[in-house]
Every structure is written in structure tokens, then in C-alpha cells.
């Protein structure tokens, strides 16, 4: 064991405490899988990441760094908020990408490109499959959320690794007022993302889209700010003309957070999911 450089980052926020926390071990060379898993269980955060030099293949493919992403219970091939937070920590530690403005991350999924625009980092939303939800499941989830069926304008099963049931509501107050029966949602085994898009959403100076993420089946009744869900929701809503190509999301309000997720579809049709990050804890970890 030795002291290794460590940061705890708040992601999707520029103000400490308003976003989704991430623990980052910046010098993870030589750690065993079991060491990483034990530390990730101990931090008790939704994710903990470990920075490594790229593999030879990764380096040849243009990777700037490699990261391994752990939850308290296992390793993930990719995740959104850990990608943005790890990239922020890597830049904060004084590194610079080979190609200015674009950072290439090597992770379990392969190479992921991250765009840097000022102090906002954005990842390319991964491919997503979607389809109509089973009506019986939709009815049960609607009940567990305390909603009436007519309050739901559109519903879609979204799968980009994590599987979310996306529900579009017509009223932002209804989204913020939800008090789901989390035990029931856990029994149903369905993670649910609820979204409202204001008519003014194309004005990205203030948040025009409200999101909440309920993930009791994943062990987290409500997630403060969620990269994967916002990626899938954006791909669905933009494709169906239910949201503009650029918008700003507010998430986490009911948990006392003020997460901000910046969505942008480029001219090639790729959706980018971005946000600011801030280093809250900086020091060393004994690992």
C-alpha cells in the first residue's frame, strides 16, 4: 500500500455539492481488481474510477488515458458521469490531450471521445435501442409513481446498457411532485426516468427540461444526476420531435442538488451529453 493521488469530483455541476459525486484514484498502476472493488465498496459512491496509462492497443488507437469504472457491487464497461468526472480529474492533474479539444478515453467499451468546450466536457451518447413498453408493465409503473395514465404523453423503453423506462409528462410540477413507491418499483425491477420538456426548451440559457431518475432496482431509489438516462432520453425525444436538438436539463432538485446536463445533437446526428465538473476533495488515498 502507498499514498496515491486522489480526487472526489462533483459532476454535472460547477458548485460543490450540487451534482453527482465520483471518487477518482489517479495513479492506479499495480492495483489488483480486488483492491479496486474493495475501495469502491468502501467509498459507497455510485461509482469510483481508477486512472491508468492506456494499453498498447489503446495508445495506438489514440487513447489519452485508460479508466476502470466500479460500482460498490461490480465493474462497468462504460458510464456517463464517471467518464466526465474522470476526464475532469485527469485534466485537473495537469494532463493535456494529444488533440486539443478532444480527449480519447479507453475503457471497457473501447475508445470513447470526449469533447472539451471551455469548462464543459461532453461524451458521445452510445448507441441505444428503444421500443414500446409492455402495456401491463407500464400500468404497474404508472401506479407505483402515483400517476394517472393520461398524465403520460409518451413512454419508451430505452436501452444503452442500462435499461430505463422513459416517461414524458406534460407538467414540470408533476415531475417534481412525484413520490414514488420505491419498494414497489424495486419489486417490478424497472428503473424509471421521468422527463418534462418546456415549450421554451430551445433557449439553453436556463434549464427547459426537468428529469428525475428512479433506480431502486439498482440500489438507488433516486439518482441525483444521470448520464446514461439523459443520453437515452435525448436520443428518443429528439428523434421523435418531442425535444429540440439543443437543450439544458435540470436534475436532482428533489434531493437538494442542482445538476445541469447540456444536450446537443451535432449536424451528423450524434447526441452529446455534457456538463461541468468541480474538484471537491483533493489529496491522497492509501491503496
Amino acid at each position, binding site marked *: *500500500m502507498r499514498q496515491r493521488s*486522489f480526487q472526489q469530483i*462533483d459532476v454535472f455541476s460547477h458548485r*460543490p*455539492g450540487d451534482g453527482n*459525486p465520483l471518487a477518482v484514484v489517479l495513479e492506479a498502476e499495480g492495483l489488483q481488481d480486488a483492491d479496486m472493488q*474493495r*475501495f469502491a*465498496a*468502501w*467509498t*459507497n*459512491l*455510485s461509482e469510483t474510477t481508477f486512472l491508468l496509462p492506456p494499453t498498447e492497443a489503446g495508445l495506438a488507437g489514440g487513447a489519452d488515458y485508460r479508466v476502470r469504472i466500479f460500482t460498490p457491487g461490480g465493474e462497468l464497461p462504460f458510464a456517463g458521469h464517471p467518464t466526465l468526472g474522470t476526464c475532469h480529474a485527469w485534466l485537473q492533474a495537469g494532463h493535456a490531450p494529444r488533440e486539443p479539444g478532444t480527449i480519447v478515453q479507453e475503457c471497457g467499451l473501447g475508445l470513447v471521445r470526449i469533447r472539451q468546450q471551455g469548462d464543459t466536457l461532453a461524451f458521445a451518447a452510445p448507441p441505444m435501442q428503444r421500443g414500446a413498453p409492455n402495456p401491463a408493465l407500464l400500468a404497474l409503473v404508472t401506479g407505483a409513481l402515483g400517476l394517472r395514465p393520461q398524465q403520460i404523453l409518451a413512454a419508451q423503453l430505452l436501452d444503452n446498457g442500462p435499461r430505463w423506462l422513459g416517461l414524458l409528462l406534460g407538467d414540470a410540477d408533476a415531475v417534481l411532485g412525484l413520490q414514488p413507491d*420505491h*419498494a414497489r418499483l*424495486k419489486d417490478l425491477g424497472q428503473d424509471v426516468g421521468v422527463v418534462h420538456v418546456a415549450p421554451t426548451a430551445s433557449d439553453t440559457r436556463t434549464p427547459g427540461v426537468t428529469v428525475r431518475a428512479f433506480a*431502486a432496482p439498482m*440500489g*438507488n*431509489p433516486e439518482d441525483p444526476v444521470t448520464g446514461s438516462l439523459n443520453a437515452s432520453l435525448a436520443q428518443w425525444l429528439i428523434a421523435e420531435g418531442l425535444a429540440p436538438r439543443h437543450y439544458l436539463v435540470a436534475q436532482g432538485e428533489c*434531493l*437538494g442538488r442542482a445538476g445541469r446536463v447540456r444536450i446537443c445533437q451535432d449536424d451528423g446526428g450524434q447526441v452529446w451529453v455534457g456538463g461541468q465538473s*468541480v*474538484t*471537491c*476533495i*483533493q*489529496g*491522497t*488515498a*492509501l*491503496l
Partner: protein
Amino acid sequence: MRQRPFQQVDVFTATPYLGNPLAVVLDGDGLSTEAMQQFTNWTNLSEATFVLPPTPEGRAAGADYRVRIFCPGRELPFAGHPTLGSCHAWLAAGGQPRVPGKVVQECGVGLVTLRQDGERLAFAAPPLIKSGPLAEDDVQRIARGLGVARTDILHHAWCDNGPNWRGVMLRSAAQVLQLKPDGAVLAGLDVGVVGPRGKVGVVGASDAEGIAFEVRAFFPGNNGLSEDPVTGSLNAALAQWLIGAGLAPTRYVASQGTALGRAGRVHVEQDSAGLWIGGHSVTCMGGQVLL
């Protein structure tokens, strides 16, 4: 906002990551209650603490430092693992008690004395608020919730010293470790389970490692039933019950967290000054926090 010294400490273990973590902000001066609560929620740990200079009254009564203890959602007047971890962090940061070997902590319940036993720290167990046997209905419900026969619960007692623990003793540590509790049946209850690790039927017998009991702590969490890795308050109350009832010797070591992959060690000792609950702590993270 400014940079403040910070440590994340593992409590009730000498080996990093096998105990119960605690976030300690070593200079909490000037932070509002709201800022402390928001940071605590953000850490996602069972507790975060904020070390402050003693109040004038506290200092006059001998306090070495003051601490405010938060769990997600609220402030606590006292808690065991945050007390040991905060004291460890304060000493590691260069704090020196006025009386060598004895540290006086000011917190919500008043002054709490800690003693240094070599590398270990111990706090004096607070008095029980409620003791005596549980209602039979409760015992049957706990048996059902734990998935054991009613006759497997050899002894039971209220273990309420702030946290409202209900304590039950099972036949063996092996039985304690195998439990797969039903959160729906135990909903709303804080249940502490203890089983002997030494020879069954011999009071206070220890195993080859010198450990007398295996302990587990179940409580209603924000996503159904939760299990705490290592619990100061429960071990304090269990010790008062078990020693008082002649079910444990006046000095023993308990193990907790095994089922979660941890290896917490709680050192219990009763002497003329009171009942002491102690353990090692180790600083796992050190640095600065922006608060």
C-alpha cells in the same frame, strides 16, 4: 468557500477498507448547518463530522475539541464510530489533549471522554435509555424476519441508547453469518444480532483469534433493509446487556461486518470507571475539501 483540511477515516479496523468509513472535515469553522448537512448527504456515507474549537463552556469543562455529527438527513447528538474516527483524525492532524492519554470531546450530548489504549481509542458507553426483555410479539416477528426458529433466539433485550436497537442472541456466530433477513417483515425495526464465536455454552469463550462474538446490525435504509458494517452504539448497548446479564465477560472482542466483506473489531472493557467501547482507526484519505 475555501479549502479545509479533510480526512476519510476507517473506524474499528487497523487495516484500510475493512471497517466503517467516516468523512471528517477538520476545520468546520464558519460552515452553516445547511452546508454541513448538504456535504454529509453528498458523501453518501453513514456519517460525516465537522471538528470545531470547543465552546467557552466546553473549554472551561475540559473539552479538547468540539464535533458536530451528521447522518444523511439530520444531525446526531452522539454516535460511536464518528466519535472514534473524529478523535483519530484530530490526533492525526496534530491535536494534543490537555491530559495525556485522555481526550475530551464536546458534542450534542455534552462532554464525552475518550481514552487512548496504545493505538486504540475507546469511548465511555452512554447509559441505556431502555433495557429489559423485548415483547414476545417482537421476538417472534424478529425470528420470522431473520428466518430462524423462535427457539434459536436464546436471549433478547432492548438495547436502546439513542438508536432504538432490539438485541437478540442466536446459538452461534455461524448462524448469525448465514442470516438473509426479510426486510418486509423487519420494516421499521433496528435489529442487532449477536452469536458466540467461541465454544457454544461457555460464557465468554473466544475463538482462536480471541474474538468472543459475531455481531450484525440491520436497520431500515432508504432502499429497504440496510446492514451497517460496524456499529458503535449497538456494540455499546449489547455489551451493557450481555455483561449485566452474565452472558459475556467484562472484557471481550466482537467482530462485525464479516457478511459485508469487512472485518470490524470492537474492543469492550468494563472497569471501575465504566464500560469502554474501543477500536483502531486508520486514515485512508487525506487532503483538502472545498467547502
